[in-house]
């Protein structure tokens, strides 16, 4: 049976290849625009039909690599149980690949050890494209295609020999959100801190008011702070640069020759970070704030911080614990924690970059983000069954279940809308282009250390007394240019090919 399938697959591949050759030789009319478009479409479908025959392989086991949280929280078991039940007639069984969630398909796949289906972040999955370790997905044929914004699909887009392929199916979006304590707002916030009267405190709507409020907290001298965040973290700090024209790589994050952390007016964004650091303590230089943010937001040392939405439960747990220690029952503490901890969109930035400016023109913060999704290993023996699994796991019901169990932000518009709250905000940000999705090329691995060093140095500068390194925008710009050069060196110096 296997041999029969192999023969069929090879025959269809040959047909696909031959048909591709025929078109290049001009056997089909391609002189007109319509002709060209038709050729491209035919080529695409021909190539993918060589991989996906459309007939499900029978009696096969597909190994699925999921992330640890999905396994630990029981979501993964639910999805494979439901899938196995739905495809029982074909004898297709999905099982846990039982591998490390960060395992490298490029290392294992060629030797037959990798999973058949992988759930990983876009930058991880797209590393596999160069060696063709994953199969392209017939995205347009999927039920979810129109429901997922193009920005999310773009994270999985690659162009090979002029043909566009989508290498994964977006499942959820990850980016920054602002966490703050509602009960730490000033009592008169509705009259004094809500200039536009929209019932949302100004300090969580724009960074200038956040700065002003942080200043007022610090000035009290009680050892408390307003907004706190570890500055070295590129994931959260780079958004301030992107908002003023910086980018990671040129040509929509595909050209590693063009590195743009210093592009546009990035130095203005870096200066915003410098101003913010001035109202924090030295903990913002290293990872101390990241480590202690849960407990310090809970005990009231910090008013607000910025992090990803998937850690909300950890903040809630810490805050509930504080309330319990104050004498509340577990249920009361939980309810109060949920009431007082607010997760919302990140504040808007002043166009001038001056956090002390009154009534500034505001621009959105373009935060760095990622899109996790499913991909299919090119080493699988059952691509059609794998595709069926991916389609099943990305349908509306499964994505909603994933959202309910794991608190993820769905990449599907219908699921994001139904989920509401953070999901809707983040989906909107993604759709509006306010989330800069992490580049999907291998060179992205080299951005972290140089950028992290710069942000750490910048934060440290806020506490230097006589020997400040970033006293002017020109000096900041020079620092950012050094970051670009370091990244360029890291990517290209040793490249022999």
């Amino acid at each position, binding site marked *: 049976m296997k041999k029969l399938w192999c023969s069929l*697959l*090879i025959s269809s*591949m040959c047909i696909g*290849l031959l048909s591709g050759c025929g078109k290049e030789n001009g056997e089909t009319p391609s002189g007109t625009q319509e002709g060209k478009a038709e050729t491209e479409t035919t080529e695409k479908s021909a*190539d993918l039909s*060589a*991989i996906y025959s459309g007939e499900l392989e029978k009696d096969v086991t597909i190994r699925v690599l999921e992330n640890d949280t999905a396994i630990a929280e029981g979501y993964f078991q639910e999805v494979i149980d439901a899938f196995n039940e739905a495809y029982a007639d074909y004898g297709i069984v999905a099982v846990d690949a039982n591998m490390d969630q960060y395992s490298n398909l*490029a290392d294992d796949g*060629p030797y037959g050890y990798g999973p058949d289906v992988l759930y990983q972040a876009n930058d991880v999955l797209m590393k596999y494209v*160069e*060696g*063709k*370790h994953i*199969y*392209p997905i017939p995205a347009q044929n999927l039920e979810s295609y129109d429901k997922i914004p193009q920005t999310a699909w773009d994270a999985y887009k690659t162009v090979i020999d002029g043909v566009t392929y989508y290498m994964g199916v977006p499942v959820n979006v990850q980016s920054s959100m602002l966490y703050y304590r509602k009960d730490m707002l000033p009592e008169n916030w509705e009259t004094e801190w809500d200039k536009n009267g929209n019932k949302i405190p100004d300090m969580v709507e724009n960074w200038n008011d956040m700065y002003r409020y942080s200043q007022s907290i610090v000035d009290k001298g009680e050892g408390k702070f307003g907004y706190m965040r570890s500055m070295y973290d590129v994931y959260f700090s780079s958004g301030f640069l992107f908002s003023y024209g910086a980018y990671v790589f040129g040509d929509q994050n595909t050209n590693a020759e063009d590195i743009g952390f210093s592009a546009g007016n990035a130095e203005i964004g870096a200066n915003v970070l410098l101003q913010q650091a001035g109202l924090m*303590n*030295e*903990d913002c*230089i*290293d*990872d*101390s*704030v990241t*480590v*202690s943010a849960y407990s310090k937001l809970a005990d009231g040392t910090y008013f607000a911080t910025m992090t990803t939405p998937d850690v909300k439960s950890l903040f809630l747990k810490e805050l509930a614990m504080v309330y319990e220690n104050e004498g509340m029952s577990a249920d009361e503490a939980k309810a109060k924690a949920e009431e007082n901890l607010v997760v919302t969109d990140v504040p808007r930035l002043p166009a001038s970059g001056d956090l002390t400016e009154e009534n500034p023109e505001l621009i959105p913060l373009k935060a760095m983000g990622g899109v996790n999704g499913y991909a299919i290993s*090119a*080493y699988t023996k059952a691509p059609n069954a794998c595709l069926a699994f991916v389609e099943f796991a990305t349908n509306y019901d499964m994505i909603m279940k994933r959202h309910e169990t794991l608190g993820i932000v769905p990449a599907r518009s219908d699921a994001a809308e139904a989920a509401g709250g953070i999901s809707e905000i983040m989906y909107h940000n993604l759709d509006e282009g306010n989330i800069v999705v992490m580049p999907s090329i*291998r060179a992205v*691995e*080299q951005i*972290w*250390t*140089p950028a*992290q*060093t710069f942000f*750490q*140095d910048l934060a*440290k500068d806020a*506490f230097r007394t006589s020997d400040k390194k970033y006293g002017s925008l020109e000096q900041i710009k020079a620092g950012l240019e*050094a970051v670009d050069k*370091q990244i360029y*060196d*890291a*990517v290209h*110096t*040793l*490249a*022999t*090919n």
Partner: protein
Amino acid sequence: MKDGVKKNTSEKWGKNVKLSMCLMGLGQFFYGQIGRGLCYLAILLLAVVYFVYRGFSDLIGLFTLGTKEADTWLGLEGDNSVVMLLMGILSVIALLFFVFCYLSNIKDAYETQKLCERGGHPAKFKEDLKQFLDKKFYKTVLFLPIVGVCVFNILPIIFMILIAFTNYGGNIVPPKLVDWVGIDNFVQIATLSQFAPTFGRILIWNLIWAAVSTAVNYFAGLGLALLLNKECVKGKAFWRAFPMLAYAVPGFITLLGFKFMFSYGGPINQIITDMGYRAVGFLDIDAKWIARGIGFAVNAWISVPSIMLLATGILSNRDASQMESAKIDGANAFQQFRHITLPFVLFSTTPVLISQFIGNFNNFGIFFFLRGGLYIDGYFLASDTDLLINWLYNLSISNNYYNVGATISLVIFMITSFISLLIYTRSSSYREEDTFR
């Protein structure tokens, strides 16, 4: 003259020896050594089968490293250069093994010939087998370890060395085909203008680090052992347990613990700020020598217990009467240590000292965990606490440039082996080896 040589050779190599040259084991057959002959013949057959079925193609693959690139999307199976390199090395080892067996087969036939000329009789198979449990027992017991060393030790080392002469890495990883590039990688490293200043700086710091941390660990361990060896110390086992606790905790956990302790939000800065002072950036971007100092201390915390244990064992063999005589002769404690204890311990521990030096020279973990993720001005993709091994990691592994990694590893190997040999050949352990025999 030529005829003379020919005559001698002709006399030297009898008919059976020549038969063994033509066909492995044939000479042995003619000597009536059927079992031995069959063994040699079996080796020949195995070699032929292996080389016909894959050895020969593996050998060719070692030179080509593949000619057909795989394309998973088109279902085209191609060559895996890395596997071909590995199998090629194996085929060379197999070829060398076969040549060794072939020569041993000739040597064996020749020795049997000489034995017969002396009036002896060729050994029977049973006698051969008995020999492997008696006189040649060392061969029996060493056979498997030698195979193990070849497969698990020599093969990876040769593999790593050969990688330095390929373009394996970056974008050239299977299924793409890897190629031989000669000494291009060495030339590239030697000619990169950015490399030289950073290499010099890091090498100097690396040598200081290796020498100082080895000395600190060694003398602290020895000092602790001497202290806990003193008769006046009560509850020695109890006190010895404390350093052992530090030794028992996995190194990277200890390092992460220390990183937290010295961080801005850690307990040490907490105490400092509670006392009214400003927090100190022990490991931050400006903390060059403070961070280096912390590295020495943390490394000592991890390494001193093992030296202490070693020294405790060696000190138990110390000649007490020698110490007693020195005391009677008026030597003070330092003089006793300087002239008796230290030479005695040094003699036994020089190889350990060298291994400690090499270990510290290549100590990847200390600064990777304590102060990783920094590139400092004036250094090319490195920080001022990075050792060569950390720099190697930044340059190659995190970039997947395995070829460059292998090249720099070879350079590091040359440096460390030169220093090790220099120290060892000048040490009393080497020069006075016979003294204690």
